[in-house]
């Protein structure tokens, strides 16, 4: 067990340590446990790289807006479908279940996004990810457990179904909302592919797409040389900037997830056992 933990965590530790070491010195290798020449220069260089701050802004915006709209929209549809008295429920479920097994695949999807005018548009990160049928099932099985007497009481007070959803159901559903928000938040934060295929404008490029281009494409060296050159220090290398960017990209999730762990374990339970 301890061995599994060790090999799980060590590669991450290695990146962190090397990103905190002087870049030129790190090229000599041999830094495994602790930085040899401790420095924050790499991180300074990351934030001085042209375009990277914009990319961060795009990522934060798409994660926050995308997660909120996803949770709200999916939960709303799920609430309506979870009501046993909804006319046509089985039909709506069938419409959804079919989407879990069949899809048009990459190319028709790409053509659709283009035809909808979402190409090079910030909304491409939000609207196509607003809804997810698997998440809907998790929501539905949670809503089923809620006592119906509360809804009835609200109805007697004159609330309509939408108001019941907003005022009664949402406050009661925080555990499942936290779970889905975490799933979707991580997805939004980590997704690079939408930025690769649907966006040409560098001002709309999320940080993961930026990093993808650095890691996977040969242009990386050039990009990084530009970055290193622009601050005119000799201690930063393209490699050390790459490592620092990776740490900066991952850190927010690493900080948030231990606190949300108890929620997502519960959420996986609801989703897997009953779904």
């Amino acid at each position, binding site marked *: 067990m301890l061995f599994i933990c060790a090999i799980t965590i060590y590669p991450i530790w290695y990146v962190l340590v090397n990103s905190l070491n002087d870049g030129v010195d790190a090229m000599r290798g041999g830094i495994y446990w602790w930085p040899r020449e401790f420095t924050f220069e790499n991180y300074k260089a990351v934030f001085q790289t042209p375009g990277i701050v914009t990319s961060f802004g795009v990522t934060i915006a798409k994660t926050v807006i995308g997660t909120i709209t996803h949770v709200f929209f999916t939960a709303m549809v799920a609430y309506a479908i979870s009501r046993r008295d909804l006319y046509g429920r089985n039909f709506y479920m069938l419409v*959804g279940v079919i989407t879990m097994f069949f899809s*048009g*695949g990459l190319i028709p999807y790409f053509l659709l996004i283009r035809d909808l005018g979402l190409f090079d548009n910030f909304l491409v990160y939000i609207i196509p990810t607003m809804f997810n049928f698997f998440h809907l099932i998790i929501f539905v099985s949670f809503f089923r457990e809620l006592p119906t007497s509360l809804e009835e009481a609200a109805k007697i007070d004159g609330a309509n179904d939408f108001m019941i959803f907003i005022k009664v159901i949402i406050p009661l559903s925080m555990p499942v909302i936290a779970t889905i928000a975490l799933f979707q938040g991580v997805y939004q934060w980590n997704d690079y592919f939408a930025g690769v295929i649907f966006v040409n404008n560098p001002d709309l490029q999320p940080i993961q797409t930026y990093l993808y281009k650095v890691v996977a494409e040969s242009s990386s060296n050039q990009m990084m040389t530009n970055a290193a050159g622009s601050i005119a220090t000799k201690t930063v290398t393209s490699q050390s900037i790459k490592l620092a960017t990776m740490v900066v*990209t991952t850190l927010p999730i*690493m900080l948030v997830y231990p606190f949300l762990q108890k929620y997502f374990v519960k959420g996986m339970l609801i989703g897997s056992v009953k779904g």
Partner: protein
Amino acid sequence: MVEPTKKEKYKKIKKTIISQKYLQGMTLLGVVWMFIFNYIPMYGLIIAFKEYSIIKTISEAPWVGLMQFKEFLQDENFWIVLKNTLGISLIKLIIGFPLPIIFALLLNELTSMKLKKAVQTISYLPHFISWVVLGGILTTWLADIGVLNDILLGLGLISERTNFLASPDNFWAIVILSDIWKELGWSAIIYLAAIAGVSPELYESSTIDGANRFQKMWHVTLPSIRPTITILFILAVSGVLNSNFDQILILRNSLNESASNVIDIYVYQMGLQNARYSYATAVGLLKAIIAFILLLSANKIVKKLNGTSLF
């Protein structure tokens, strides 16, 4: 009792729908979304049977029948792509499927709650790291000046430094091992949940029968989580042709192409980089059809063997 006439029935339905106008409206928004983002692309699949180009609309493009499919089957890349897709996925299934079960069983045997929690927290961690960052870690580790070379040189297993990602020989191993590294803890959650649901009475009675810990694991825990294992197995089989697009897109390069070109990558290259929309759609459709047949047959076989199935 008088049977309600058709007219009365319609009236009743109309009344129900009007009384549920908010609920129906909320559902309708979801249905409209699914229609646009799921069903229109399904309609778009017909371009696999046409010669679609950017200057024509889908309905204007001429029909070409199965030409695109024939072209793919005759393409020299067909066998390479098929071999890589099936090879990577099957090995992933054979090695990667049982490991989370074993991990969950072992984790369940830990008596210290604190240690258990710590192990879990750490083992989920890589799931939250994006493939982009992980790709960065891997390229750093596997480079010729990277850590793996240091270790292998130190142990005397290799005599000179190599860049592991620059040759097709090790590509499958890299893809499979890094995938297991990333998802082991996460995949174990479901099994841990299933184990937690096993009735304690079963353990008590087996203690009376004199079973030791291993026997309990084998005769009580495993049979109890069999339904969960079955369902996840069916899903894994149907996903056999999905050889983790994100991961391979990041790790592949022109030097390891003969081992890294899988169906999804091929579709991406042909469709989006070369703009051969109809051809790429046909390749993708072929994959989806095979995957669906696999799903149905896995479901049927498992149903015959032990009664549980997805549908």
